[in-house]
């Protein structure tokens, strides 16, 4: 993508050319993929800026004034926000062109894109497999080369896990680095918007636009390290001399596919060869991440989704009384997984259970964040699998919520602690991509991306693409 930007800026290709290609690709492939929920092609190629002419897609939980914002829910099937999310406005100012809104798990709750109220998304590598979730549409659209860049959101792994399943690079920034204004909230203390692209340097180019202090978001940071990503990634040396990388052994427990373990080990070898000191270490509270997350995220979700009541916007069921209006609108408007999380979240906050569940989990979160902070006194980065497995076939986990939740077990700690994390392709297992996750200290987003970039300079994993789409995939500038 950065090469396309350069080509547009030097006049080698016209600013409308990338958009033209995207329009053609979406027309050719999206009927099979189901990555988009709405598309719109503007006439003008965007304003001159750092991403001039770059077409991009945004997950459908980011408010857009020009396209509906449905969160892949019946509840918001025809909802048109009156304003653009801060990230959408920033992308537009940078010259990027919004071409559509991508499919997702309903209200970002899910790990397979199967909870979308509208249609599933096919994994471009194997159409009967899931693309991951909840940003499954964004991941599939990038992996299939429909767009060079997509925005996802990540509450418990929703950028990184689908990035891993689809063989692309996906970044969850430090909590507070990117404005949440206009992101339809799932769990406010964990949600972050982030880029999904082919390479770490493309993600860095997008981070340069996305990361900015927003006075409209009280949790948005004005940290001095949060900026200048692409330049810092490019300026980083090829080697990793002096870097200390920890591999927490708790991420390799039960349920982790041995082939995935092998892929992460070989990534560790790559970093060792680059000069990093890589060693196993322990983060003993990791095993509590998933239960802690499900309590806290569900509690916040139950609260955040209380506003969808059919009164002011969105779906309103036919009703003769206000109570009936609430019950029916919410009963009909929300899908099963969303209802499950609302119910769990309501329960853990309810009288008599708050201390044992919500408050207890908030304390465990404190322990885990402390443990991770202490680990970063000894290690610069942590290396783990992004997911315990590669993409799984559609329909096999939908009946078992816990099995589905396990897909997020490796990604959740970064959300609980608010640290930056990236998933990079780590090769193929049985023809499906494996994701390798790198985590760093709060606000060391540039360092995490630089490390991912060094990995990509040293390996070719990110250059692999699914068959049938390859001609139009933009891999590290090969086709620009």
């Amino acid at each position, binding site marked *: 993508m950065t090469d396309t930007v350069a080509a547009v800026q030097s006049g080698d290709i016209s600013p409308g050319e990338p958009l033209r290609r995207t329009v053609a690709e979406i027309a050719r492939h999206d009927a099979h993929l189901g990555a988009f929920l709405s598309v719109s092609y503007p006439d003008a190629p965007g304003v001159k800026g750092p991403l001039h002419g770059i077409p991009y897609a945004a997950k459908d939980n*980011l408010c857009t004034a020009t396209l509906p914002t449905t*969160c892949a829910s019946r509840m918001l099937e025809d909802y048109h926000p009156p304003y653009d999310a801060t990230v959408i406005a920033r992308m537009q100012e940078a010259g990027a062109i919004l071409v559509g809104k991508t499919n997702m798990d309903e209200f970002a709750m899910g790990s397979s894109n199967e909870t979308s109220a509208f249609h599933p998304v096919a994994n471009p590598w194997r159409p009967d497999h899931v693309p991951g979730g909840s940003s499954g549409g964004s991941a599939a659209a990038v992996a299939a080369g429909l767009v060079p860049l997509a925005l996802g959101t990540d509450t418990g792994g929703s950028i990184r896990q689908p990035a891993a399943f689809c063989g692309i690079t996906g970044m969850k920034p430090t909590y507070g680095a990117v404005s949440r204004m206009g992101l339809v909230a799932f769990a406010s203390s964990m949600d972050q918007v982030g880029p999904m692209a082919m390479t770490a340097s493309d993600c860095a180019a997008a981070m340069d636009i996305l990361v900015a202090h927003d006075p409209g978001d009280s949790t948005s940071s004005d940290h001095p390290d949060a900026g200048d990503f692409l330049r810092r990634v490019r300026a980083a040396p090829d080697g990793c001399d002096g870097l200390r990388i920890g591999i927490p052994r708790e991420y390799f427990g039960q349920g982790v596919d041995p082939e995935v373990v092998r892929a992460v080990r070989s990534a560790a070898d790559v970093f060792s060869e680059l000069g990093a000191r890589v060693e196993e270490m322990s983060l003993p509270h990791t095993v509590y991440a998933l239960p802690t997350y499900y309590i806290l995220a569900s509690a916040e979700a139950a609260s955040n*989704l209380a506003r969808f*009541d059919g009164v002011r916007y969105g779906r309103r069921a036919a009703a003769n009384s206000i109570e009936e209006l609430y019950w029916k609108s919410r009963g009909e408007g929300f899908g099963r997984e969303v209802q499950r999380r609302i119910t769990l979240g309501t329960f853990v906050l309810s009288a008599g259970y708050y201390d044992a569940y919500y408050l207890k989990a908030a304390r465990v979160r404190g322990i885990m964040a402390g443990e991770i902070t202490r680990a970063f006194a000894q290690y610069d980065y942590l290396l783990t699998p992004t997911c315990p497995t590669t993409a799984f076939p559609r329909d096999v986990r939908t009946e078992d919520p816990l099995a589905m939740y396990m897909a997020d077990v490796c990604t959740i700690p970064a959300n609980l602690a608010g640290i930056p994390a990236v998933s990079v392709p780590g090769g193929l297992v049985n023809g499906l991509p494996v994701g390798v996750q790198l985590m760093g200290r709060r606000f060391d987003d540039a360092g995490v991306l630089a490390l991912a970039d060094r990995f990509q300079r040293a390996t070719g994993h990110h250059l692999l693409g699914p068959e049938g789409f390859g001609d139009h995939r933009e891999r590290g500038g090969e086709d620009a």
Partner: protein
Amino acid sequence: MITGNGVEKMREQYRPVIGLEIHVALDTESKMFCACVNAFGSTPNTDVCPVCLGLPGSLPVTNARAIELGITCARALGGQVAPRTYFERKHYHYPDLPKGYQISQYAAPLSIGGELVVDDSHSGEEVRVRIRRVHLEEDAGKSMHSRQSGHTQLDFNRCGVPLAEIVTEPDITSCAQARRFLEELRAIMRTAGVSRVRMEEGELRCDVNFNLVHVKAGQEITRTQISEIKNLNSFRAVQRALEYELMRHRSALEAGDGLLHETRHWDADREVTYAARTKEQAHDYRYFPDPDLPPILIERELVDYLAAGIPELPRARRRRLRETWGIEWSQAEILVEEPEMADFFESAIAEGAEPSEACKWIVGEIAGYLNTVDTTLGALPFSAADLAALLRLVEDGAISGKIAKEVWLEVMEGGGSPEAIVERRGLRQISDDAILEQIIEEVVAEHPEAAEDYAGGKDKTLGFLVGQVMQKTRGQANPQKVNEMIARRLRGGRDDN
């Protein structure tokens, strides 16, 4: 009324236990968590934005001024302001609550403790009411329920208006005292600049908790369960609702019924309370810290700075005005209820006005005039110096008290300074002896019988004669002077009145 003497102690008593939860709208330009204007009376659903409407993706940002006014409110009541406080979400569903939760405070209120002392004007007692806590929250919108259309109409303009909620301990022991407490609270809030407390705009709303303790020989025998009466928006409603509850609880105790702990509502038309349909235990607000809002740290210096800016509070001021200027309790009460009015009073004195006269004019003429116009004292086109000048004209005998009222009305309506009005309209009293003597001669000549009657000792006739003089001078004669001169003329100065 409960008193402490021994005889009373032996008696059987029903002792009301009353606690209040008061919502006061803070005097800010913008709302609590968004930049929408904090106004009353706008076209429905125009002072709204994605934040106060709770549109998907919107986020709150705290109004710094609301925090400051909350601190001022807490300090004016003697509360201890927390060094670290945070907002929580209080969940319930109601169509005028856009997010399905209200941003409020629960576990970490802005302030705890404090006290409000009320002087009971009847008993002369000091009633000390402890304050439990003060916290900040956002208001909800307004629902209008139309039987005709079968709809509830929703206006979200009020959503997000900043409120301070003040919770008392159950220290109030009579219905009248509850009202006095609220009046005192209103005066404090106005004085401290926390709120303008415009009752008609709903800027003070109150929930009351009431129960009744049966005491015999100083020992509690039994007590009723607490009734919570919600959302009373006038002092009268508070007092009447409490009086109704007192009667209801007393009948219950006498019938051996302890009543149920319940939420009740006030029916202002029938002047009764009635039980809510949803039982209190059905509410489960599921409070938890709002993840959109980082905690607020409050430095000691800020608290001290704001506390130092609080003017003299009403009770102290009332006392000082009485002690320094010798004015009546009830007049001090009226003056201090509106801090502007008390300020005006003190300025007038500084301008040389005589205190009891100034007080009489402010409490009478000015307060009366303010009731007829929809504005504040500060917005009116006259100053305390004008009042002082007016009083000086009366004192100097330049105009009569009657003319003074006329002149003052013109001053209040923007007619200029009292001196200018008197000159322009030629209202200066006739005190010139030669002129008055001539007129008195005329009157004596025209009414010889009356003159004779008066000269013969019939005092009542003097009034008639003076009236004739006043008529001839179109009210401009100095009546005091005319009195004296007629007496001298007809009785040769031997006026034994």
